Structures are given as C-alpha cells and as structure tokens.
C-alpha cells in the first residue's frame, strides 16, 4: 500500500508542478507581451529610443528565464523567439523601417502566446 500512496503522491506532485509551470510561463509571457506591445506603440509614434529600451528590457527579462525555458520547452521555439528579439533590436537600432519592426515584434508576441497555448491542458492540445 505504501507504494500506491507514493505513486499517487508523485503523480499529484507532477500535476502540481505542471500547473505551477503553466502559471509561471503565463506570467512571463504576459509581462513580455505587454512590454512588446508597448514597444510597438512607441515605434508607431516614432519614439525609437524608448521602443529600443523597452524591447531591450523585455529581451533581458527573457534571457533571465533562459535556463528555465530551455529545461521545459522545445528548444526550437525558444531559439525562434530569441532570434526574433535580436532581429527586432537590430531594426530598432537602425530606426528606419517601423512597419517591419512592428511585424517582427508582433511575431514575437504571437510566438510567445503559442508557447503558452501549447502547454495548456485543453482538448485542442490533448487530441
């Protein structure tokens, strides 16, 4: 019977950790998406320096979570978002093409939403 309780406890622990992971990932992606949306607005109003600072801050925050994200999510998705950040930062430092820059920022936001979407225990994901 001890083995039964240990297994049930372990399953419960795994479920709880998965729920915590979804919650933590949701917080990270929501915060970063907000920052990137703000950067998009700043680009549209030609506030290039502020937009660069906002995006850089979002990128730094993303990098702070790199180990956690690599340990829990497919590396391909993480690397794609990483490249997106670098691409956006290069557009922002050039301060030339606001529409392209906004498109790259929108792509990062979308990829982060997909990252969270894939983790949710929805019927769509299960089946």
């Amino acid at each position, binding site marked *: *019977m001890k*083995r039964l309780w240990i297994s049930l406890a372990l*399953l419960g622990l795994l479920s709880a950790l998965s729920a915590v992971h979804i919650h933590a990932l949701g917080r990270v992606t929501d915060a970063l998406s907000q920052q990137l949306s703000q950067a998009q607005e700043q680009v549209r109003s030609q506030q290039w320096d502020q937009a660069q600072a906002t995006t850089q801050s979002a990128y730094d925050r993303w990098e702070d979570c790199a180990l956690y994200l690599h*340990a829990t*999510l*497919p*590396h391909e998705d993480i690397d794609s978002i990483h490249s997106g950040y670098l691409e956006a930062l290069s557009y922002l430092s050039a301060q030339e093409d606001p529409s392209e820059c906004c498109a790259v920022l929108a792509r990062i936001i979308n990829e982060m939403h997909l990252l969270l979407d894939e983790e949710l225990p929805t019927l769509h994901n299960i089946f």
Partner: protein
Amino acid sequence: MIEHLFPRGDFLFVVLIRTVLLYLMIIVGLRLLGKRQLGELEPTELTLTLIIADLASVPMQDNGIPLLCGVIPILTLLCCATILSVCSARFIRFRTLLCGRPSIVIRQGKVVEEELRKNRLTVDELLEELRIQGYTDPAAIQFAVLETNGQLSVLPQPWAKPATAGQLSLTAPPAGLPVLVISDGRLLHHNLHSLGFEGRWLQKQLDKLGLSSPSQVFLLTADQEGNTYCVPKEVRR
C-alpha cells in the same frame, strides 16, 4: 553558470550527459518494475517496458527536446504501473480485467478448440509449444494451461509423468543449494562464511584437487553439506 560550463559548441558532450541521465532513469525504472524476465512479462508490463525505452530514446537523440519531456512521461508511466500493480494485487476482479484469465487449452488429452480460438492460438503453435516442453503427443497431457503471460504450462497424464524417488520408495540424499565460492580466481568470502565454512576448509578442498590457491580456480561452488564442484583455470600457453 551551467551555460559557461557547457557552451553551445559542446553538442556531443551534451548528448553524452543526456544519454547517461536517461540511461540511469531507465535502469531505475526497470528496477522498479521488478525482476521478471522479458518472456514472463504480462502484456501490460511488456508494453510499458517498450514505451519507457522509446520515450527515453527520443530526447536522447534530439537535443532540441527538453530532458524533462522524457523524464516526466517515464515517471508518470511508472507511477501508473505501480498503481495498477498494487490494485491488481489487491482486487481479483481488477487483476482479471487487466491481465485476463489463464485458459485451459488441453483437458484430459483433448484439445479445447474454443479456447484456442479465443486466444488466437493455432494447433501448430500449440504442438510447437508442447514439443519445446518435451511432449509430442497431446493425449499424454492431462492439462495444458495458457498462462496470462503467454507461456504454456503442461501437466502430463499421471501415467506419462516421470517417477519420483518417493513413488519408487527410494531415499535420496539431501541436496543443498550450491553457492558460488570462487569466481574467476576471486574468493567470495561472504558466500563462504554464509555456508558456515572457513578459509581452512576451503584450503583442504583445494589441496584435494591439487590446487594451491583460489587464483588457480575458475569456478568453485559448494553447498551446506560440503559438496563442491570445481573447474580449475585453463593453463595458457
């Protein structure tokens, strides 16, 4: 910190570490499943073993998949398997549902066609199994039972059973359990002491065989009665 230890170029090193970790995980998993041989596994256990091996191999080969994607399903499966095994040990109906029931495929020398059909076993396969077990004639079998793990247990007719010492009113000398005492020249002190013998007894046995030390012995077993079986090492030219 970890990124500094293993920069991105160390792809092979990462594969090596991941392989070792997953291999350890499989060993722990299979150890938890028990000591049964592959042929003795229930269908559910066999499936579980195959799935665990497959789950571990995916993140082992692909560095782009997080290690946790292999570890979590393996842990989950082991937990589920443990829950099922405890439940099947406690509840007979659940065990029947999970593992099925043994089927009697030969009863009093007659092949039971219905059971063969139910178990999708052909007559050729049945006869092959019987031959493997040393029986060529189904009439000589009282019962043949197809166990839930797929093995066939055969109980011969009373007249076809080999006679035992008891039936022949003979007294057989007591036989002890042989224990390995020397393996490839190495003396296993623990095994020797568990038999209740000392080094002096062993030396006497070696002297009788014309050997001077355990290093000259390839294999030596002994039982509680003091009976020994010895294979000296081959002399290399």
